[in-house]
């Protein structure tokens, strides 16, 4: 009788579970197509490292708690499988595994205690020392209590079984034996009765837990590992190229217009809050909170998918129809929508994507929502209209006459590749380097270095155009698309193979974004070039003019392109071998200067200014010089140093300037 009841409960629970799983798969299928099945080996490797190995989880100390919980669970999966089958077929046992079975049971026993400890710790953390970036939710406590009671029921059950001598691997289950000590003297009958009670508690909690997952943030138990498998192969994912055909919708205004991996992302969030902890917008009291954005994406998806399925019951595993009606808008309008303000707050710094333990790709989602606002609605902060028009008409953000682009080179005798000069490298100066009076000093410094090292180089002069970085990050993909195509065509026309850039934004745009447009240039950032020139002995920086140098990692150099050591090597060479000082947040954890993602051209009205937050951090390192390798960072720090009234004691310099002043 008992077995029959269990059989029915079990079948019901599994039917419900698989129905939900199917529903989740169908929901992911609503998204647009994208190939994430390439490079299977490296995907598998990543899945083992980050999914099973939890490499990102344990980057924070408390992550070890999760690590243990996770591995406890992995061990218990098999044991619970045996438990359920045994409930239906009492004769079933994994004992056929031989000695392995004893090892498994030994481990499961220990791990259950470990898990129990971890649960207690996790509850205590949430109650007594909860970090600000973790929300207090009933959901979390419920799950922790379920897991805890599962472990208690397990020990209760096995201890009784041990006393009743029904535990095949009992000898090896040390914790169970310890618990069983308390049961000495109980009679067989009460032992048996308690065993059944624990058994049922264990069974019910287990089946309930399994079915509760899809309704909670613990959905990530099911989705996190696949999400690690399908992670982007680029360091920081960018938006896909669009086809500008009539009748299409550009950008994303409905959740089902995301690609399927984005939808899986929404389902994989663990609500750990790590993205919020590092986000420059969240850190300076802006509306944007990447964790919240992902959560809004998830509830928006679940609400809207219901109506899509209701209108299309038959064809479950297909993308959503183009005209699918949505109950809740994705952008603005409800608590299940992402606010417009948040969308414009992002600097695309990539800090969130760097720390997310399950590889959620936040920035491309934000940029694609911007695309909708810009390209479909022409709704954007008004200060951007000048930028958009200047970039399109005069190919620079300020709208300066293109004929002034090469003015900086007027007296420098710089070779022009447009006049047939054969040069190994094209120095792609970039708009800031060509027009901004401060950045022009860096351009001139770099010129000096190139000449001193005898590099064969040239420029495009007035023919150079804007790379389009800001346009792309701000969602003006249509104009970016044109700029990218025109630039690639021009670079190919002059037979350019190797390009030096000074601006990290030009760098990543030419190197990574243009790949989508068929470009394949060898793009080198000046930090790479200078460090290799120093290593090769082509230039020998000597003096030590910069004093104590603190270094800033630009988002688009570091997180986007893994250039951390090169700028440091350069400074080292100019400081008599001394490594530069580091800020509290450096390298992968570097904090944005506030200018990326097109924010350079926008007002920053809410909260604290990002550049101030960062400049104050730099000043805490008591530097004589703040070293940067990006024209935007240069502007931001110079403003910050002025605001902090430190301009007379602290200089902001590009690494090229530091080098140029230390070579004769």
């Amino acid at each position, binding site marked *: 009788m008992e077995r029959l009841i269990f059989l029915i409960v079990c079948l019901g629970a599994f039917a419900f579970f698989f129905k939900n799983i199917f529903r989740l798969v169908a929901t992911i299928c609503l998204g647009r197509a994208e190939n994430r099945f390439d490079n299977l080996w490296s995907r598998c490797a990543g899945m083992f490292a980050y999914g099973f190995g939890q490499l990102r989880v344990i980057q924070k100390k408390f992550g070890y708690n999760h690590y243990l919980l996770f591995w406890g669970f992995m061990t218990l999966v098999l044991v619970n499988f045996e438990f359920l089958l045994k409930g239906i077929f009492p004769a079933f046992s994994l004992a056929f595994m031989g000695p392995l079975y004893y090892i498994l049971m030994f481990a499961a026993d220990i791990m259950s205690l470990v898990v129990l400890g971890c649960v207690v710790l996790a509850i205590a953390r949430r109650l007594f020392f909860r970090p600000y970036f973790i929300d207090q939710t009933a959901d979390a406590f419920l799950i922790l209590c379920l897991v805890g009671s599962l472990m208690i029921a397990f020990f209760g059950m096995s201890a009784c079984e041990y006393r009743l001598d029904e535990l095949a691997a009992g000898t090896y289950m040390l914790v169970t034996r310890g618990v069983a000590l308390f049961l000495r003297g109980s009679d067989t009958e009460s032992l048996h009765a308690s065993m059944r009670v624990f058994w049922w508690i264990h069974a019910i909690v287990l089946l309930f837990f399994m079915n509760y997952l899809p309704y909670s943030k613990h959905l990530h138990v099911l989705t996190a590992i696949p999400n690690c498998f399908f992670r982007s192969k680029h360091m920081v994912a960018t938006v896909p190229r669009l086809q*500008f*055909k*009539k009748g299409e919708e*550009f950008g994303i205004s409905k959740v089902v217009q995301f690609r399927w991996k984005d939808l899986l992302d929404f389902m994989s969030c663990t609500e750990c809050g790590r993205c919020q902890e590092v986000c420059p917008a969240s850190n300076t009291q802006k509306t944007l909170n990447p964790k919240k954005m992902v959560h809004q994406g998830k509830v928006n998806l679940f609400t809207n998918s219901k109506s899509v399925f209701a209108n299309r019951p038959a064809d479950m595993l297909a993308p959503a129809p183009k005209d699918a009606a949505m109950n809740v808008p994705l952008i603005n309008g409800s608590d299940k929508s992402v606010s417009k303000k948040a969308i414009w707050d992002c600097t695309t710094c990539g800090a969130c994507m760097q720390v997310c333990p399950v590889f959620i790709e936040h920035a491309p989602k934000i940029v694609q929502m911007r695309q909708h606002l*810009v*390209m*479909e*609605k*022409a709704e*954007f902060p*008004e200060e951007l*209209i000048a930028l*958009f*028009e200047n970039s399109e*008409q*005069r190919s620079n953000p300020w709208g300066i*006459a*293109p*004929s002034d682009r090469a003015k900086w080179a007027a007296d420098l005798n710089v070779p022009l590749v447009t006049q047939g000069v054969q040069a190994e490298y094209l120095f792609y100066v970039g708009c800031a380097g060509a027009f901004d009076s401060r950045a022009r000093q860096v351009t001139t410094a770099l010129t000096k270095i190139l000449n001193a090292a005898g590099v064969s180089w040239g420029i495009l002069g007035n023919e150079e155009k804007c790379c389009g970085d800001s346009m792309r990050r701000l969602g003006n993909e*249509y104009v970016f698309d044109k700029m990218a195509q025109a630039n690639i065509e021009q670079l190919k026309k002059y037979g350019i193979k190797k390009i030096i850039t000074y601006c990290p934004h030009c760098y990543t745009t030419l190197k990574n974004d243009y790949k989508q447009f068929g470009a394949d240039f060898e793009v080198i950032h000046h930090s790479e070039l200078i460090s290799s020139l120093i290593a090769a002995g082509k230039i020998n920086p000597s003096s030590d003019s910069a004093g104590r140098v603190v270094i800033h990692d630009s988002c688009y150099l570091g997180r986007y392109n893994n250039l951390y050591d090169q700028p440091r090597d350069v400074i080292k060479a100019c400081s008599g071998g001394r490594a530069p000082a580091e800020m509290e947040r450096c390298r992968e954890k570097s904090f944005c200067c506030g200018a990326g993602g097109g924010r350079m051209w926008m007002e920053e009205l809410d909260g604290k200014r990002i550049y101030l937050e960062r400049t104050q951090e730099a000043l805490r390192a008591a530097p004589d010089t703040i070293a940067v390798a990006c024209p935007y960072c240069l502007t931001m720090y110079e403003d910050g140093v002025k605001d902090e009234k430190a301009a007379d004691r602290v200089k902001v310099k590009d690494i090229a300037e530091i080098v140029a002043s230390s070579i004769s």
Partner: protein
Amino acid sequence: MHIVVCVKMVPDTTQVSIDPVTNTLIRDGVPFITNPYDTNAVEEAIRFKDKYGAFVTAVSMGPPNAESVLRKAVSIGTDRAILLSDRAFGGADTLATSTVLGLAIKKLNEEQPVDIVLCGKQTIDGDTAQVGPGIARRMNITQLTLVDEVVSVNTEKKTIRIRRKLENYHEIIEVKLPVMMTVEREINTPRYPTVPGRLHADDVRVEIWSNAQLKLDPATIGLPGSPTQVRRIFAPEREKGEIMMGEGPDRTKAVEACFAKLLDRDIVHV
């Protein structure tokens, strides 16, 4: 309601320089843009469309490549685009230009009565501000120049109330339609075209009207119809005036010196 908006393709003048020898504009490689004042005229026309469901026709006179400025007007919502293009129209001054535009709009008026003709206040290449009024004269309708705000429109009584920006004051006038208005830049902020708008504009057929349709006397149009003659183009040289500077405590001294001079010449009084 039918609105006709006039647009002109002009060289991006900030990029134009003057050849010191020949005294002509060096236009080589200088991109063409929509005359900035006209972008406000187009925007205002589209606002009439948004508000009153007006039908908007954009008209331009110029070489075949002036089509691009019409497409731009279409990309933000203009319904019909007409390019007046003929070799015979070439070399026109403001008089001959108004003749051609005026006649073309009269023709449009026959097809569908025109209520408002919108022009930019002036163009940035000629800066004469004469073509708008010239059109009004030829169509024999009221002209409202220097408009910086449309206060209200009464569609039943067919009247419009606008504000003009004059030297030291504003003037609010109400008149009967039809009217010709030239607009100031302050009247609005032109919208940014959406991508569907741009793609639509790429496909739209721009009608080309030549003199074969307009049948104007060749003596009244183009170069022969233009009494204006250009003798010399030059950047005005500043002969008078000076810059008085001083930094730090010297600043006050510079101001004092400046006032002394102004007092001296009776420009200001104590």
